[in-house]
């Protein structure tokens, strides 16, 4: 398939792996920010292609994983009300709340509908004016423009029965939080290519400068990742800390200005709690005052922050890059996609799901089959 197979070419991948090995004179620890990148790395075994010492640590960029549990609970509560319909991306449906997940609520009669675009949720609201239709607006900067468009169109069309349950998060504040952590060991970032397609690369420049950390905006195919690693290692070896763009076929320095303008009109920056990580200042988006009447929390009651129950799950540490999934004693045994202890095991962008899906549950005979 054109425009895809070129980025999965085995010979070129080996070439990059050799170039990285040649460029690296000492160990470096890099973080790929986005869960989509994590899946590429684990699926294609990019980490195994890299020279010993170049470690890829998985970042917090799984929108489903960091959505606070109280928002999942709220979504279930809304969907379970007579006369209300909750529209969501499919990914959210298996995320465990405190009282089950949306799929379970659906099987008990709640009106939960999977949509592929927030505009599909608008169509539901138009087609069924007697129902209160709520769209579960989660995600990073990548999904924010489309969600903003839904709010903008709802306003223009005067749709009184449409609202959004918003739990949007932003990448740069999370990167700062990781770098500020006392135990931080990240020396370079592969930034999320699709987030930067929207936002551009400028907001990363102050981070690179302040923390003296190279940031390479990187795509999602195997060769994208390898080239991103190569560019990052080169910077580290040269003692540079700049923002560079590997994903030039999609990302411009200024980003998508129209998308940014729409986001600026519909949303405002607010503090957000990240599931498994905690409160991060100015790290999220909520509806701007002019759109506040479209806020599902105004119609169905505010989401109340709760403390997270301490348990065996280490997904918070996994999301911050402090642990890898196989280091969790529950991984693949007491925690599987069927019976997840944490969201990172169920989301299609979760790191635990990537390891489980592509490398399997740990086996007693693992040592003898390793590297097979």
């Amino acid at each position, binding site marked *: *398939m054109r425009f895809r197979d070129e980025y999965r*070419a085995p010979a070129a991948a080996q070439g990059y792996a050799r170039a990285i090995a040649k460029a690296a004179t000492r160990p470096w620890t890099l973080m790929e920010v986005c869960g989509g990148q994590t899946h590429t790395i684990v699926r294609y075994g990019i980490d195994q*292609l890299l020279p010993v010492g170049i470690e890829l640590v998985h970042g917090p960029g799984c*929108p489903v994983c960091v959505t606070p549990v109280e928002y999942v609970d709220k979504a279930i509560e809304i969907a379970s009300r007579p006369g209300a319909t909750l529209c969501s991306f499919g990914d*959210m449906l298996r995320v465990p709340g405190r009282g089950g997940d949306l799929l379970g609520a659906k099987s008990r009669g709640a009106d939960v509908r999977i949509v592929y675009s927030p505009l599909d949720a608008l169509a539901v609201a138009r087609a069924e004016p007697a129902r209160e239709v709520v769209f579960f607006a989660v*995600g990073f900067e990548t*999904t924010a423009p489309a969600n903003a468009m839904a709010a903008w169109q709802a306003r223009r069309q005067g749709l009184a029965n449409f609202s959004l349950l918003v739990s949007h998060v932003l990448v740069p504040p999370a990167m700062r939080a990781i770098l500020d952590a006392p135990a931080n060991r990240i020396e370079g970032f592969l930034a999320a290519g699709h987030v930067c397609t929207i936002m551009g690369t400028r907001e990363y420049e102050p981070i690179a400068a302040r923390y003296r950390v190279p940031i390479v905006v990187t795509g999602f195919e195997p060769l994208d990742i390898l080239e991103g690693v190569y560019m990052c290692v080169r910077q580290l070896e040269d003692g540079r800390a700049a923002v560079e763009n590997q994903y030039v076929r999609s990302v411009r320095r200024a980003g998508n200005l129209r998308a940014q303008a729409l986001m600026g009109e519909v949303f405002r920056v607010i503090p957000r709690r990240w599931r498994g990580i905690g409160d991060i200042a100015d790290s999220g988006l909520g509806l701007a005052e002019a759109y506040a009447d479209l806020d599902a929390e105004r119609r169905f009651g505010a989401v109340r922050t709760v403390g997270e129950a301490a348990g065996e799950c280490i997904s918070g540490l996994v999301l911050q890059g402090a642990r890898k999934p196989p280091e969790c004693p529950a991984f693949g045994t007491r925690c599987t*996609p069927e019976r997840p202890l944490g969201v990172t095991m169920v989301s299609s962008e979760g790191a635990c799901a990537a390891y489980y899906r592509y490398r399997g549950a740990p086996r007693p005979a693992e040592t003898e089959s390793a590297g*097979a």
Partner: protein
Amino acid sequence: MTAARGFAPSCPLPAGDGECVQLAHGGGGRAMARLLDALIRPAFDDPELDRRHDGAALEVTGPVAFTTDSYVVKPLVFPGGDIGSLAVNGTVNDLAMCGARPLYLSVGLIVEEGLALETLRAVVASIAAAAKAAGVRLVTGDTKVVDRGSADGLFVNTAGIGEIVAPAPVGPAQVRAGDAVVLSGDIGRHGIAVMAAREALGFETAIESDCAPLAAPVLALVESGIAVRCLRDLTRGGLASALVEIAETAGKRIAIEEAAIPVRADVSAACELLGLDALHVANEGRFVAFVAAEDAARAVEVLRRYDAAGAAAVIGVVGDGPPGQVSCRGAIGASRVIDMLSGEQLPRIC
């Protein structure tokens, strides 16, 4: 075709042969008799049905394979097939996977009140055509009508009997280390075709379901003297589930090569867009054959005669490694583990 022009979506009472199926059509009285006489028996056209007996009296020689499956699909008609062809081919294929020549099918229809008679007629015609194409007779059946809201338009159950013709037992227990894994054609078309039709995904696609009867290629494998150890048609759960099930039952390890698995470019593109793995996408006209290594090339040659695209290929090999494990070597060289899906494939957020 007796349906009048000017279709009205509501079902007029009193019951007569209106344009929608009504509860009376399943009531065992005159309306039901008329439905069977006018719509079903002529289409299925089998002397056993014409005897109007409670069951069929059949001649079968040798060992028999017997299977049943129920079919629920939304929408009832999709590019490349409908619930009728699906219900016939699905059961025909299950019989074929037992190494059997499919002979007789039963057809049970559970019809929701309000289904357009035109739709029912089209599905019945499709069942008849698919049976004819697969060389099986429709010898007994049942029709029920349920209240509006109790079924998704139409559910179909088929059961089938076939004569086992494979000279040796066929099944996961026969799989041995060293056997070759042969795939009969390109994968993923049915799942994408149905998803595109159901979800109104808004992309234009010419992808049609691969729904097809598989008895002929299976019988050809058997007749050409190939040592067939195990056969499995790929349905829901795709190639991945079929291989994992066989690996687990056989207690063997299966290693496949991603580059060897045929996936059409349009299916591949749809999978990329939706965040799906083609290995997990449904098929209705594809199967894997586990054959002795020395027969692998001949098996491919035989299967290519039955696949217009000639995409049949050896995709992997059975080994002795960790039992139940399926691994897939990717383009870049690293292997990944293939597992069954834990639930439905849900499209990702971004």
